[in-house]
Protein backbone atom coordinates (compact mmCIF):
# COMPACT_ATOMS: atom_id res chain seq x y z
CA UNK A 1 0.00 0.00 0.00
CA UNK A 2 2.76 2.39 0.89
CA UNK A 3 4.51 1.91 -2.43
CA UNK A 4 2.13 3.87 -4.57
CA UNK A 5 2.48 7.26 -2.96
CA UNK A 6 6.25 7.21 -3.09
CA UNK A 7 6.31 7.31 -6.87
CA UNK A 8 6.72 10.70 -8.53
CA UNK A 9 3.29 12.16 -8.56
CA UNK A 10 3.68 15.69 -9.76
CA UNK A 11 0.90 15.15 -12.26
CA UNK A 12 -1.57 13.57 -9.85
CA UNK A 13 -4.29 16.09 -9.03
CA UNK A 14 -4.95 17.00 -5.41
CA UNK A 15 -8.49 15.76 -5.75
CA UNK A 16 -10.07 13.70 -8.44
CA UNK A 17 -13.79 12.96 -8.44
CA UNK A 18 -15.01 10.84 -11.32
CA UNK A 19 -18.59 9.83 -12.17
CA UNK A 20 -19.84 9.93 -8.60
CA UNK A 21 -23.55 9.58 -7.95
CA UNK A 22 -25.28 9.36 -4.62
CA UNK A 23 -28.86 9.03 -3.52
CA UNK A 24 -30.66 9.00 -0.19
CA UNK A 25 -33.51 6.63 -0.85
CA UNK A 26 -35.43 8.20 -3.70
CA UNK A 27 -33.68 11.54 -3.44
CA UNK A 28 -30.82 11.89 -5.83
CA UNK A 29 -28.20 14.09 -4.20
CA UNK A 30 -25.44 13.79 -6.81
CA UNK A 31 -25.61 12.66 -10.46
CA UNK A 32 -22.43 11.69 -12.32
CA UNK A 33 -20.32 14.34 -10.67
CA UNK A 34 -16.77 14.70 -11.97
CA UNK A 35 -14.26 17.34 -11.02
CA UNK A 36 -10.57 17.81 -10.53
CA UNK A 37 -8.58 20.08 -8.25
CA UNK A 38 -5.05 20.74 -9.47
CA UNK A 39 -2.35 21.21 -6.86
CA UNK A 40 -2.00 24.66 -5.41
CA UNK A 41 -5.23 26.05 -6.84
CA UNK A 42 -8.17 27.76 -5.19
CA UNK A 43 -11.29 26.08 -6.52
CA UNK A 44 -14.74 27.47 -5.75
CA UNK A 45 -17.60 25.01 -5.63
CA UNK A 46 -20.55 27.22 -6.44
CA UNK A 47 -24.05 26.04 -5.77
CA UNK A 48 -27.26 27.00 -4.08
CA UNK A 49 -28.43 25.38 -0.88
CA UNK A 50 -29.45 21.82 -1.63
CA UNK A 51 -27.30 21.59 -4.76
CA UNK A 52 -25.40 18.65 -3.26
CA UNK A 53 -22.33 20.43 -1.92
CA UNK A 54 -22.51 18.92 1.54
CA UNK A 55 -23.19 15.45 0.16
CA UNK A 56 -20.12 15.75 -2.02
CA UNK A 57 -18.11 16.78 1.04
CA UNK A 58 -19.43 13.83 3.01
CA UNK A 59 -18.35 11.47 0.26
CA UNK A 60 -14.89 13.02 -0.07
CA UNK A 61 -14.36 12.80 3.69
CA UNK A 62 -15.54 9.14 3.75
CA UNK A 63 -18.45 9.87 6.01
CA UNK A 64 -20.30 7.59 3.69
CA UNK A 65 -18.85 5.58 0.86
CA UNK A 66 -19.19 6.49 -2.77
CA UNK A 67 -20.88 3.49 -4.32
CA UNK A 68 -20.36 4.56 -7.90
CA UNK A 69 -17.38 6.22 -9.53
CA UNK A 70 -14.15 7.03 -7.74
CA UNK A 71 -12.71 9.67 -5.44
CA UNK A 72 -8.96 10.02 -5.19
CA UNK A 73 -6.94 12.35 -2.97
CA UNK A 74 -3.40 12.63 -4.35
CA UNK A 75 -3.99 9.38 -6.16
CA UNK A 76 -5.16 7.51 -3.05
CA UNK A 77 -8.62 6.04 -3.44
CA UNK A 78 -10.76 7.13 -0.48
CA UNK A 79 -12.38 3.71 -0.20
CA UNK A 80 -9.39 1.46 -0.57
CA UNK A 81 -6.64 3.64 0.91
CA UNK A 82 -8.62 5.75 3.32
CA UNK A 83 -5.72 6.35 5.70
CA UNK A 84 -3.36 7.69 3.04
CA UNK A 85 -6.14 9.84 1.60
CA UNK A 86 -7.40 11.26 4.90
CA UNK A 87 -3.89 12.08 6.12
CA UNK A 88 -3.57 14.61 3.31
CA UNK A 89 -6.97 16.11 3.76
CA UNK A 90 -7.98 19.00 6.02
CA UNK A 91 -11.67 19.75 6.47
CA UNK A 92 -13.70 22.64 7.82
CA UNK A 93 -17.29 21.44 8.11
CA UNK A 94 -20.29 23.65 7.70
CA UNK A 95 -21.56 23.00 11.23
CA UNK A 96 -19.42 24.01 14.19
CA UNK A 97 -17.45 21.08 15.50
CA UNK A 98 -15.38 22.50 18.35
CA UNK A 99 -15.65 21.48 22.00
CA UNK A 100 -17.10 24.58 23.60
CA UNK A 101 -16.03 23.68 27.13
CA UNK A 102 -12.42 23.03 26.26
CA UNK A 103 -9.81 25.70 25.64
CA UNK A 104 -8.52 26.59 22.18
CA UNK A 105 -5.28 24.88 23.01
CA UNK A 106 -7.03 21.69 24.19
CA UNK A 107 -9.19 21.57 21.07
CA UNK A 108 -6.12 21.71 18.88
CA UNK A 109 -4.21 19.13 20.92
CA UNK A 110 -7.16 16.77 20.59
CA UNK A 111 -7.05 17.14 16.84
CA UNK A 112 -3.30 16.48 16.85
CA UNK A 113 -3.96 13.25 18.73
CA UNK A 114 -6.55 12.23 16.16
CA UNK A 115 -3.73 12.37 13.65
CA UNK A 116 -1.24 10.59 15.86
CA UNK A 117 0.79 13.72 16.65
CA UNK A 118 1.94 14.09 20.24
CA UNK A 119 4.37 15.79 22.60
CA UNK A 120 6.61 18.68 21.58
CA UNK A 121 5.65 18.29 17.94
CA UNK A 122 1.96 18.73 18.79
CA UNK A 123 2.67 21.79 20.93
CA UNK A 124 4.79 23.40 18.22
CA UNK A 125 2.15 22.80 15.57
CA UNK A 126 -0.59 24.12 17.83
CA UNK A 127 1.34 27.30 18.53
CA UNK A 128 2.06 27.78 14.84
CA UNK A 129 -1.56 27.18 13.84
CA UNK A 130 -2.83 29.66 16.42
CA UNK A 131 -0.35 32.24 15.14
CA UNK A 132 -1.46 31.65 11.55
CA UNK A 133 -5.04 32.62 12.39
CA UNK A 134 -4.10 35.33 14.90
CA UNK A 135 -5.50 33.71 18.04
CA UNK A 136 -2.29 33.13 20.01
CA UNK A 137 -3.33 35.33 22.94
CA UNK A 138 -6.63 33.48 23.38
CA UNK A 139 -5.06 30.00 23.59
CA UNK A 140 -6.06 29.28 27.18
CA UNK A 141 -9.62 30.57 26.90
CA UNK A 142 -12.64 28.38 26.45
CA UNK A 143 -13.98 28.17 22.90
CA UNK A 144 -17.37 29.22 24.27
CA UNK A 145 -15.99 32.75 24.65
CA UNK A 146 -15.07 33.11 20.98
CA UNK A 147 -17.11 35.00 18.41
CA UNK A 148 -18.39 33.27 15.29
CA UNK A 149 -15.53 34.56 13.18
CA UNK A 150 -12.93 33.59 15.74
CA UNK A 151 -14.20 30.04 16.07
CA UNK A 152 -14.20 29.74 12.27
CA UNK A 153 -10.56 30.82 12.26
CA UNK A 154 -9.84 28.30 14.98
CA UNK A 155 -11.45 25.57 12.88
CA UNK A 156 -9.21 26.54 9.99
CA UNK A 157 -6.21 26.41 12.31
CA UNK A 158 -7.32 22.97 13.43
CA UNK A 159 -7.66 21.71 9.88
CA UNK A 160 -4.03 22.69 9.20
CA UNK A 161 -2.44 20.92 12.18
CA UNK A 162 -1.63 17.68 10.38
CA UNK A 163 -0.29 19.68 7.42
CA UNK A 164 -2.73 18.60 4.77
CA UNK A 165 -2.07 19.26 1.11
CA UNK A 166 -5.74 19.66 0.30
CA UNK A 167 -8.19 21.74 2.29
CA UNK A 168 -11.97 21.42 2.01
CA UNK A 169 -14.17 24.18 3.39
CA UNK A 170 -17.93 23.86 3.39
CA UNK A 171 -19.54 27.31 3.39
CA UNK A 172 -16.93 28.67 5.83
CA UNK A 173 -18.22 32.24 5.80
CA UNK A 174 -21.87 31.51 6.55
CA UNK A 175 -23.13 33.60 9.44
CA UNK A 176 -20.03 35.79 9.68
CA UNK A 177 -19.97 39.57 9.59
CA UNK A 178 -18.06 41.32 6.82
CA UNK A 179 -14.88 41.80 8.83
CA UNK A 180 -14.65 38.17 9.93
CA UNK A 181 -15.54 37.01 6.46
CA UNK A 182 -12.70 38.97 4.94
CA UNK A 183 -10.18 37.70 7.45
CA UNK A 184 -11.23 34.06 6.88
CA UNK A 185 -10.96 34.47 3.10
CA UNK A 186 -7.60 36.18 3.44
CA UNK A 187 -6.16 33.44 5.64
CA UNK A 188 -7.17 30.67 3.26
CA UNK A 189 -6.06 32.51 0.15
CA UNK A 190 -2.66 33.21 1.63
CA UNK A 191 -2.28 29.49 2.39
CA UNK A 192 -2.78 28.80 -1.30
CA UNK A 193 -0.27 31.47 -2.29
CA UNK A 194 2.43 30.84 0.27
CA UNK A 195 2.19 27.11 0.94
CA UNK A 196 0.73 25.90 -2.31
CA UNK A 197 -2.25 24.25 -0.67
CA UNK A 198 -5.05 23.09 -2.90
CA UNK A 199 -8.40 24.39 -1.68
CA UNK A 200 -11.98 23.42 -2.43
CA UNK A 201 -14.18 26.24 -1.16
CA UNK A 202 -17.91 25.57 -1.25
CA UNK A 203 -20.14 28.62 -1.22
CA UNK A 204 -23.26 30.17 -2.61
CA UNK A 205 -21.83 33.70 -2.43
CA UNK A 206 -20.70 34.83 -5.89
CA UNK A 207 -18.59 37.69 -4.60
CA UNK A 208 -16.17 35.21 -3.03
CA UNK A 209 -14.97 34.19 -6.50
CA UNK A 210 -11.82 35.92 -7.81
CA UNK A 211 -10.94 36.07 -11.52
CA UNK A 212 -7.94 33.79 -10.95
CA UNK A 213 -9.97 31.00 -9.35
CA UNK A 214 -11.25 27.84 -10.87
CA UNK A 215 -14.98 27.34 -10.65
CA UNK A 216 -17.09 24.21 -10.33
CA UNK A 217 -20.75 24.96 -10.81
CA UNK A 218 -23.02 22.47 -9.06
CA UNK A 219 -26.75 22.72 -9.55
CA UNK A 220 -29.50 20.26 -8.65
CA UNK A 221 -27.01 17.42 -8.10
CA UNK A 222 -25.17 17.94 -11.41
CA UNK A 223 -21.94 19.67 -12.38
CA UNK A 224 -22.85 22.22 -15.05
CA UNK A 225 -19.44 23.75 -15.59
CA UNK A 226 -15.81 23.38 -14.56
CA UNK A 227 -13.10 25.78 -15.61
CA UNK A 228 -11.58 29.19 -15.00
CA UNK A 229 -13.60 32.34 -14.44
CA UNK A 230 -12.80 33.85 -17.87
CA UNK A 231 -13.86 30.58 -19.47
CA UNK A 232 -17.12 30.66 -17.54
CA UNK A 233 -17.84 34.25 -18.63
CA UNK A 234 -16.94 33.52 -22.25
CA UNK A 235 -19.00 30.34 -22.27
CA UNK A 236 -22.09 32.10 -20.98
CA UNK A 237 -21.40 35.45 -22.70
CA UNK A 238 -21.94 37.33 -19.46
CA UNK A 239 -20.02 39.93 -17.47
CA UNK A 240 -20.22 38.62 -13.92
CA UNK A 241 -20.10 35.26 -12.20
CA UNK A 242 -23.57 35.73 -10.75
CA UNK A 243 -25.03 36.47 -14.20
CA UNK A 244 -23.23 33.45 -15.58
CA UNK A 245 -24.63 31.32 -12.78
CA UNK A 246 -28.17 32.50 -13.36
CA UNK A 247 -27.91 31.96 -17.06
CA UNK A 248 -26.52 28.46 -16.72
CA UNK A 249 -28.87 27.26 -14.02
CA UNK A 250 -31.79 28.82 -15.84
CA UNK A 251 -31.03 26.88 -19.01
CA UNK A 252 -30.33 23.68 -17.16
CA UNK A 253 -33.55 23.86 -15.19
CA UNK A 254 -35.47 24.33 -18.44
CA UNK A 255 -34.28 21.08 -20.00
CA UNK A 256 -36.07 18.99 -17.39
CA UNK A 257 -33.34 16.37 -17.21
CA UNK A 258 -33.50 15.69 -13.50
CA UNK A 259 -35.86 12.76 -13.45
CA UNK A 260 -34.11 10.09 -11.40
Amino acid at each position, binding site marked *: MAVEHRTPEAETPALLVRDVSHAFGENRALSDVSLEIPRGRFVVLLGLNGAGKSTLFSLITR*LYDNVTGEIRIFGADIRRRATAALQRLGVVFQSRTLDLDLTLHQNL*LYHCALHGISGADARARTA*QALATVGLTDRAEEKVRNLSGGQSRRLEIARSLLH*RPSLLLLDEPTVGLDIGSRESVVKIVRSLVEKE*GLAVLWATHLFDEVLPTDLVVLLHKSRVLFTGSVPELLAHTETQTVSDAFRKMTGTAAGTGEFAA
Partner: protein
Amino acid sequence: MTTVSATDQQRSPTGDRNTYDAPPPLGVRAYFTCLYGIVWREVLRYMHQRERFLSALVRPLIWLFIFAAGFRQALGVQNTPPYDGAVLYEVYVLPGLIGMILLFNAMQSSLSMVYDRETGAMRTLLVSPFPRWFLLVSKLVGGVAVAAIQAYVFLIIFYFWEADLGSTGYALLLGPLAALAVLVIVNAFGKMFSQRTMAGALVAALLATAAMMLAVVFAWGLPAPSMNYLAVLPAVLIAGFMLGSLALLLSSVVRQLENFAGVMNFVIFPMFFASSALYPLSRIEQSSPVLYHICLLNPFTHAVELIRFALYARIDWISLAIVLLCTAIFLGGAIYAYNPSKGLIARRGGPG
Protein backbone atom coordinates in the same frame (compact mmCIF):
# COMPACT_ATOMS: atom_id res chain seq x y z
CA MET B 1 9.68 15.65 -4.88
CA THR B 2 11.78 14.64 -1.90
CA THR B 3 11.55 11.22 -0.41
CA VAL B 4 9.45 10.94 2.66
CA SER B 5 10.86 10.52 6.11
CA ALA B 6 9.76 11.30 9.60
CA THR B 7 12.16 14.22 9.83
CA ASP B 8 10.53 15.91 6.87
CA GLN B 9 7.32 16.03 8.78
CA GLN B 10 8.89 17.32 11.95
CA ARG B 11 10.86 19.99 10.20
CA SER B 12 10.63 23.49 11.62
CA PRO B 13 7.08 24.64 12.19
CA THR B 14 7.63 27.87 10.32
CA GLY B 15 6.21 26.65 7.07
CA ASP B 16 9.28 25.61 5.10
CA ARG B 17 7.94 22.12 4.61
CA ASN B 18 7.14 20.75 1.22
CA THR B 19 3.38 20.83 0.91
CA TYR B 20 3.24 17.71 -1.19
CA ASP B 21 5.40 15.40 0.87
CA ALA B 22 3.38 12.31 1.58
CA PRO B 23 2.64 11.99 5.30
CA PRO B 24 4.47 9.28 7.24
CA PRO B 25 2.65 6.01 7.85
CA LEU B 26 0.87 5.70 11.18
CA GLY B 27 2.95 3.60 13.55
CA VAL B 28 2.08 1.96 16.84
CA ARG B 29 2.99 5.13 18.70
CA ALA B 30 0.55 7.14 16.64
CA TYR B 31 -2.19 4.70 17.56
CA PHE B 32 -1.41 5.17 21.24
CA THR B 33 -1.39 8.93 20.81
CA CYS B 34 -4.81 8.77 19.21
CA LEU B 35 -6.26 6.49 21.88
CA TYR B 36 -4.81 8.63 24.64
CA GLY B 37 -6.12 11.81 23.02
CA ILE B 38 -9.67 10.49 22.73
CA VAL B 39 -9.72 9.18 26.32
CA TRP B 40 -8.21 12.45 27.58
CA ARG B 41 -10.91 14.45 25.83
CA GLU B 42 -13.69 12.31 27.30
CA VAL B 43 -12.32 12.67 30.84
CA LEU B 44 -11.73 16.40 30.37
CA ARG B 45 -15.24 16.96 29.05
CA TYR B 46 -16.61 14.98 31.96
CA MET B 47 -14.68 17.08 34.46
CA HIS B 48 -16.14 20.21 32.90
CA GLN B 49 -19.67 18.95 33.33
CA ARG B 50 -19.92 19.28 37.10
CA GLU B 51 -23.67 18.68 37.14
CA ARG B 52 -23.13 15.40 35.37
CA PHE B 53 -20.46 14.41 37.87
CA LEU B 54 -22.69 15.28 40.80
CA SER B 55 -25.81 13.61 39.45
CA ALA B 56 -23.83 10.50 38.56
CA LEU B 57 -22.72 10.36 42.18
CA VAL B 58 -25.93 11.37 43.90
CA ARG B 59 -28.06 8.78 42.08
CA PRO B 60 -26.42 5.65 43.54
CA LEU B 61 -25.98 7.36 46.90
CA ILE B 62 -29.72 7.94 47.14
CA TRP B 63 -30.27 4.27 46.44
CA LEU B 64 -27.68 3.28 49.00
CA PHE B 65 -28.70 5.60 51.83
CA ILE B 66 -32.46 5.71 51.37
CA PHE B 67 -33.68 2.79 49.33
CA ALA B 68 -31.31 0.22 50.77
CA ALA B 69 -31.77 1.47 54.32
CA GLY B 70 -35.52 1.16 53.92
CA PHE B 71 -35.30 -2.32 52.49
CA ARG B 72 -32.74 -3.59 54.95
CA GLN B 73 -35.39 -5.25 57.09
CA ALA B 74 -37.62 -6.42 54.25
CA LEU B 75 -34.88 -7.93 52.13
CA GLY B 76 -32.22 -9.55 54.25
CA VAL B 77 -30.10 -11.71 51.97
CA GLN B 78 -29.17 -15.19 53.07
CA ASN B 79 -26.65 -17.62 51.66
CA THR B 80 -26.60 -16.40 48.09
CA PRO B 81 -23.25 -16.97 46.45
CA PRO B 82 -20.71 -15.40 46.75
CA TYR B 83 -21.87 -14.51 50.27
CA ASP B 84 -21.59 -17.06 53.11
CA GLY B 85 -24.34 -16.46 55.56
CA ALA B 86 -26.45 -13.37 55.85
CA VAL B 87 -25.30 -9.99 54.57
CA LEU B 88 -26.72 -6.53 54.96
CA TYR B 89 -28.92 -5.46 52.10
CA GLU B 90 -26.59 -2.51 51.50
CA VAL B 91 -23.78 -4.95 50.89
CA TYR B 92 -25.90 -7.00 48.54
CA VAL B 93 -27.00 -4.01 46.52
CA LEU B 94 -23.52 -2.48 46.12
CA PRO B 95 -22.57 -4.35 42.89
CA GLY B 96 -25.97 -3.48 41.46
CA LEU B 97 -25.35 0.18 42.16
CA ILE B 98 -21.93 0.00 40.53
CA GLY B 99 -23.72 -1.57 37.58
CA MET B 100 -26.16 1.30 37.68
CA ILE B 101 -23.32 3.82 37.49
CA LEU B 102 -21.91 1.99 34.48
CA LEU B 103 -25.33 1.72 32.82
CA PHE B 104 -26.25 5.37 33.26
CA ASN B 105 -22.83 6.47 32.16
CA ALA B 106 -22.93 4.30 29.05
CA MET B 107 -26.35 5.62 28.07
CA GLN B 108 -25.32 9.17 28.78
CA SER B 109 -22.24 8.87 26.60
CA SER B 110 -24.28 7.26 23.85
CA LEU B 111 -26.60 10.20 24.13
CA SER B 112 -23.67 12.55 23.87
CA MET B 113 -22.61 10.62 20.80
CA VAL B 114 -25.93 11.33 19.15
CA TYR B 115 -25.44 14.93 20.17
CA ASP B 116 -21.92 14.77 18.75
CA ARG B 117 -23.36 13.46 15.54
CA GLU B 118 -25.81 16.30 15.32
CA THR B 119 -23.22 18.98 16.05
CA GLY B 120 -20.61 17.38 13.87
CA ALA B 121 -18.07 16.48 16.56
CA MET B 122 -18.46 12.88 15.44
CA ARG B 123 -17.47 14.00 11.95
CA THR B 124 -14.16 15.39 13.15
CA LEU B 125 -13.56 12.08 14.86
CA LEU B 126 -14.43 10.03 11.80
CA VAL B 127 -12.27 11.99 9.35
CA SER B 128 -9.24 11.04 11.38
CA PRO B 129 -7.04 8.76 9.24
CA PHE B 130 -7.16 5.91 11.76
CA PRO B 131 -9.42 2.95 11.01
CA ARG B 132 -12.97 3.55 12.05
CA TRP B 133 -13.19 0.54 14.38
CA PHE B 134 -10.18 1.87 16.24
CA LEU B 135 -11.76 5.30 16.67
CA LEU B 136 -15.01 3.80 17.97
CA VAL B 137 -13.19 1.49 20.38
CA SER B 138 -11.11 4.43 21.63
CA LYS B 139 -14.27 6.40 22.21
CA LEU B 140 -15.62 3.46 24.20
CA VAL B 141 -12.45 3.23 26.28
CA GLY B 142 -12.87 6.92 27.09
CA GLY B 143 -16.42 6.35 28.30
CA VAL B 144 -15.35 3.36 30.38
CA ALA B 145 -12.54 5.40 31.97
CA VAL B 146 -15.06 8.02 33.05
CA ALA B 147 -17.41 5.35 34.40
CA ALA B 148 -14.59 3.68 36.34
CA ILE B 149 -13.69 7.00 37.98
CA GLN B 150 -17.31 7.37 39.09
CA ALA B 151 -17.45 3.80 40.38
CA TYR B 152 -14.34 4.31 42.49
CA VAL B 153 -15.55 7.57 44.00
CA PHE B 154 -18.71 5.66 44.95
CA LEU B 155 -16.66 2.80 46.43
CA ILE B 156 -14.65 5.23 48.55
CA ILE B 157 -17.87 6.72 49.91
CA PHE B 158 -19.16 3.22 50.63
CA TYR B 159 -15.95 2.41 52.50
CA PHE B 160 -16.39 5.36 54.85
CA TRP B 161 -20.09 4.66 55.24
CA GLU B 162 -19.36 1.03 56.12
CA ALA B 163 -16.73 2.07 58.68
CA ASP B 164 -19.46 3.81 60.72
CA LEU B 165 -17.48 6.78 62.00
CA GLY B 166 -20.17 8.41 64.08
CA SER B 167 -21.25 12.01 63.76
CA THR B 168 -17.85 13.54 64.61
CA GLY B 169 -16.10 11.51 61.97
CA TYR B 170 -18.59 12.32 59.24
CA ALA B 171 -18.62 16.00 60.23
CA LEU B 172 -14.85 16.08 59.77
CA LEU B 173 -15.05 14.26 56.44
CA LEU B 174 -17.82 16.35 54.98
CA GLY B 175 -16.67 19.68 56.46
CA PRO B 176 -14.67 20.94 53.45
CA LEU B 177 -17.38 19.91 50.99
CA ALA B 178 -20.09 21.54 53.10
CA ALA B 179 -18.04 24.74 53.23
CA LEU B 180 -17.72 24.60 49.45
CA ALA B 181 -21.47 24.08 49.06
CA VAL B 182 -22.17 27.13 51.24
CA LEU B 183 -19.71 29.17 49.20
CA VAL B 184 -21.34 28.10 45.92
CA ILE B 185 -24.82 28.96 47.19
CA VAL B 186 -23.74 32.33 48.56
CA ASN B 187 -21.93 33.14 45.34
CA ALA B 188 -24.98 32.19 43.29
CA PHE B 189 -26.80 35.10 44.90
CA GLY B 190 -24.02 37.61 45.38
CA LYS B 191 -21.56 36.90 42.53
CA MET B 192 -18.77 38.21 44.74
CA PHE B 193 -16.09 35.76 43.64
CA SER B 194 -14.67 35.28 40.18
CA GLN B 195 -14.85 32.00 38.31
CA ARG B 196 -11.16 31.52 38.94
CA THR B 197 -11.59 31.89 42.70
CA MET B 198 -14.42 29.37 42.67
CA ALA B 199 -12.34 26.89 40.70
CA GLY B 200 -9.58 27.36 43.27
CA ALA B 201 -12.07 26.78 46.08
CA LEU B 202 -13.21 23.56 44.43
CA VAL B 203 -9.66 22.26 44.18
CA ALA B 204 -8.96 23.31 47.77
CA ALA B 205 -12.11 21.56 49.01
CA LEU B 206 -11.20 18.35 47.19
CA LEU B 207 -7.66 18.40 48.54
CA ALA B 208 -8.96 19.10 52.04
CA THR B 209 -11.40 16.20 51.73
CA ALA B 210 -8.61 13.89 50.63
CA ALA B 211 -6.50 15.04 53.60
CA MET B 212 -9.46 14.50 55.95
CA MET B 213 -9.92 10.98 54.59
CA LEU B 214 -6.32 10.11 55.37
CA ALA B 215 -6.58 11.73 58.79
CA VAL B 216 -9.77 9.82 59.57
CA VAL B 217 -8.34 6.49 58.38
CA PHE B 218 -5.37 6.86 60.72
CA ALA B 219 -7.13 8.51 63.65
CA TRP B 220 -9.88 5.87 63.78
CA GLY B 221 -7.56 3.11 62.64
CA LEU B 222 -10.01 2.00 59.96
CA PRO B 223 -9.66 -1.57 58.75
CA ALA B 224 -9.22 -2.39 55.08
CA PRO B 225 -12.50 -2.44 53.14
CA SER B 226 -14.57 -5.58 53.56
CA MET B 227 -14.47 -6.15 49.83
CA ASN B 228 -11.64 -6.34 47.36
CA TYR B 229 -11.61 -2.96 45.65
CA LEU B 230 -8.67 -3.87 43.46
CA ALA B 231 -9.96 -7.16 42.11
CA VAL B 232 -13.18 -5.49 41.06
CA LEU B 233 -11.40 -3.17 38.61
CA PRO B 234 -11.19 -5.62 35.68
CA ALA B 235 -14.83 -6.58 36.21
CA VAL B 236 -15.86 -2.91 36.21
CA LEU B 237 -13.90 -2.32 33.00
CA ILE B 238 -15.30 -5.38 31.22
CA ALA B 239 -18.87 -4.67 32.28
CA GLY B 240 -18.46 -1.00 31.38
CA PHE B 241 -17.16 -1.99 27.99
CA MET B 242 -20.15 -4.22 27.33
CA LEU B 243 -22.66 -1.55 28.32
CA GLY B 244 -20.70 1.04 26.35
CA SER B 245 -20.83 -1.13 23.21
CA LEU B 246 -24.56 -1.57 23.68
CA ALA B 247 -24.96 2.18 23.98
CA LEU B 248 -22.80 2.75 20.91
CA LEU B 249 -24.97 0.34 18.96
CA LEU B 250 -28.10 2.10 20.20
CA SER B 251 -26.68 5.49 19.24
CA SER B 252 -26.16 4.35 15.68
CA VAL B 253 -29.51 2.60 15.35
CA VAL B 254 -31.75 5.10 17.09
CA ARG B 255 -31.24 8.41 15.40
CA GLN B 256 -33.71 10.29 17.54
CA LEU B 257 -32.28 9.33 20.89
CA GLU B 258 -31.90 12.85 22.19
CA ASN B 259 -34.63 12.36 24.73
CA PHE B 260 -33.08 10.89 27.85
CA ALA B 261 -36.49 10.09 29.30
CA GLY B 262 -37.04 7.70 26.41
CA VAL B 263 -33.77 5.95 27.08
CA MET B 264 -34.65 5.72 30.78
CA ASN B 265 -38.01 4.12 30.06
CA PHE B 266 -37.04 1.75 27.32
CA VAL B 267 -33.46 0.81 28.16
CA ILE B 268 -32.26 1.73 31.63
CA PHE B 269 -35.27 0.83 33.78
CA PRO B 270 -36.08 -2.53 32.15
CA MET B 271 -32.41 -3.55 32.21
CA PHE B 272 -31.91 -2.43 35.78
CA PHE B 273 -35.06 -3.86 37.35
CA ALA B 274 -35.11 -7.12 35.41
CA SER B 275 -31.74 -8.09 36.80
CA SER B 276 -30.08 -9.31 39.95
CA ALA B 277 -29.05 -5.77 40.88
CA LEU B 278 -31.66 -5.23 43.58
CA TYR B 279 -32.74 -8.74 44.59
CA PRO B 280 -31.33 -12.25 44.24
CA LEU B 281 -32.78 -14.07 41.26
CA SER B 282 -33.96 -16.86 43.58
CA ARG B 283 -36.48 -14.40 45.03
CA ILE B 284 -37.77 -13.56 41.56
CA GLU B 285 -38.06 -17.24 40.65
CA GLN B 286 -40.40 -17.73 43.59
CA SER B 287 -42.81 -15.10 42.38
CA SER B 288 -42.52 -15.36 38.59
CA PRO B 289 -40.63 -18.07 36.69
CA VAL B 290 -41.09 -16.17 33.43
CA LEU B 291 -39.52 -13.03 34.81
CA TYR B 292 -36.75 -15.18 36.24
CA HIS B 293 -35.83 -16.38 32.77
CA ILE B 294 -36.00 -12.87 31.39
CA CYS B 295 -33.60 -11.77 34.11
CA LEU B 296 -31.28 -14.62 33.24
CA LEU B 297 -31.23 -13.49 29.61
CA ASN B 298 -30.52 -9.89 30.58
CA PRO B 299 -26.84 -9.13 29.98
CA PHE B 300 -26.97 -6.58 32.77
CA THR B 301 -27.62 -9.40 35.28
CA HIS B 302 -24.36 -10.98 34.26
CA ALA B 303 -22.50 -7.69 34.39
CA VAL B 304 -23.68 -7.26 37.98
CA GLU B 305 -22.83 -10.83 38.95
CA LEU B 306 -19.38 -10.45 37.43
CA ILE B 307 -18.82 -7.40 39.63
CA ARG B 308 -20.39 -9.09 42.67
CA PHE B 309 -18.03 -12.06 42.54
CA ALA B 310 -15.03 -9.89 41.68
CA LEU B 311 -15.61 -7.89 44.87
CA TYR B 312 -14.63 -11.08 46.69
CA ALA B 313 -11.78 -11.80 44.27
CA ARG B 314 -13.75 -14.61 42.63
CA ILE B 315 -14.70 -15.12 39.02
CA ASP B 316 -18.20 -16.06 37.91
CA TRP B 317 -17.15 -17.86 34.75
CA ILE B 318 -20.59 -18.10 33.20
CA SER B 319 -21.22 -14.40 33.67
CA LEU B 320 -17.79 -13.58 32.32
CA ALA B 321 -18.42 -15.66 29.21
CA ILE B 322 -21.82 -14.10 28.62
CA VAL B 323 -20.53 -10.56 29.15
CA LEU B 324 -17.65 -11.13 26.74
CA LEU B 325 -19.96 -12.67 24.16
CA CYS B 326 -22.43 -9.79 24.43
CA THR B 327 -19.58 -7.28 24.14
CA ALA B 328 -18.44 -8.93 20.92
CA ILE B 329 -21.97 -8.90 19.49
CA PHE B 330 -22.77 -5.31 20.48
CA LEU B 331 -19.39 -3.98 19.39
CA GLY B 332 -19.53 -5.84 16.09
CA GLY B 333 -22.99 -4.44 15.48
CA ALA B 334 -21.89 -0.91 16.32
CA ILE B 335 -18.86 -1.07 14.03
CA TYR B 336 -21.07 -2.44 11.27
CA ALA B 337 -23.63 0.31 11.82
CA TYR B 338 -20.95 3.00 11.64
CA ASN B 339 -19.39 1.51 8.50
CA PRO B 340 -19.68 4.15 5.79
CA SER B 341 -20.80 1.87 2.99
CA LYS B 342 -22.85 -0.90 4.55
CA GLY B 343 -23.99 0.58 7.81
CA LEU B 344 -27.10 2.35 8.90
CA ILE B 345 -25.45 5.75 8.75
CA ALA B 346 -25.14 5.50 4.99
CA ARG B 347 -28.73 4.43 4.63
CA ARG B 348 -30.14 7.04 6.93
CA GLY B 349 -28.32 9.93 5.37
CA GLY B 350 -25.52 10.13 7.86
CA PRO B 351 -24.57 12.49 10.60
CA GLY B 352 -25.13 16.18 10.26
